[in-house]
């Protein structure tokens, strides 16, 4: 954990601080809300862990998901579609967006680009406002993909079926016909 190279034998004076110090000023509150976004991220990870366990545990093999397994996975997805869970997910989304838009401006301050030639184009691109622009671009691209999948979830299966990744699996679920669309 911490390095105690110069350990003092004297009892250090700790100035008493109220646990509610951060509620007294808007700036502190914004800081604490930013730190608080991680609680919602953790909750969402657990939500996804549930989904992942439900999927993984009910597979007999990649070609066959038994009826009971399909039904239990279906019930979990139905639970995710409950208005309370949708509201919760919207809350997580707001928190994550808040995290993102405090995280990107922070990056130029937190990263140190080690390239010998400081005048090279790459150095300039990975520094300052260009780095922020790059990250925002990546954010926009993935979020746009997320929105497309929200409206058209079959797209992901359609995109990947020609690659042959799931052809066998889909045949197992829908007989020799494969995907019924």
């Amino acid at each position, binding site marked *: 954990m911490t390095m105690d190279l110069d350990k003092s034998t004297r009892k250090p004076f700790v100035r008493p601080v109220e646990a509610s110090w951060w509620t007294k000023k808007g700036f502190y509150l914004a800081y604490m809300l930013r730190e608080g976004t991680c609680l919602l991220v953790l909750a969402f990870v657990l939500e996804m862990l549930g989904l992942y366990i439900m999927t993984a545990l009910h597979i007999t093999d990649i070609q066959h998901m038994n009826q009971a397994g399909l039904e239990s996975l279906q019930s979990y997805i139905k639970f995710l579609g409950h208005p309370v869970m949708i509201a919760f997910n919207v809350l997580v989304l707001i928190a994550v967006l808040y995290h993102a838009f405090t995280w990107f401006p922070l990056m130029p301050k937190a990263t140190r680009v080690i390239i010998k030639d400081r005048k090279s184009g790459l150095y300039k691109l990975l520094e300052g406002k260009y780095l922020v622009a790059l990250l925002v671009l990546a954010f926009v691209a993935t979020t746009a993909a997320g929105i497309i999948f929200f409206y058209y979830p079959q797209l992901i299966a359609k995109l990947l079926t020609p690659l042959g990744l*799931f052809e066998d699996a889909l045949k197992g679920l829908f007989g020799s016909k494969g995907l019924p669309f």
Partner: protein
Amino acid sequence: MFRKDRSDEPIYWGLFGAGGMVVAIVLPAIIIATMGLNHSVLDTAMFANVILSPVFSLAFIGIMILCTWHALHRIYHTLHDLTIHVGTLHHLLIYGLALLISLAFIGCYLIILFKNLF
């Protein structure tokens, strides 16, 4: 084996940084896509097929594990701001929980992988 003069902090901060990037860039898309999930038989089966692909699954657990370490590292350091002075117990509990969640994801991934192979 363990050098007392070397700190293990860079590992946690590294995972925190990588996780923060994943949370900011990838997680919004995952949350939006999750809200679009449909519980019809067809959509559930298709979702299962996508998530059961070894490549997709690996990317998914990678994202989720980084998010876990990011969140729990941030909780660990925010305890200090809430006037809770962290000690070995807090360290073990919080990073232990992160390890536990990571292992749960990895365990599920191994189940999927082995069922793909055999």
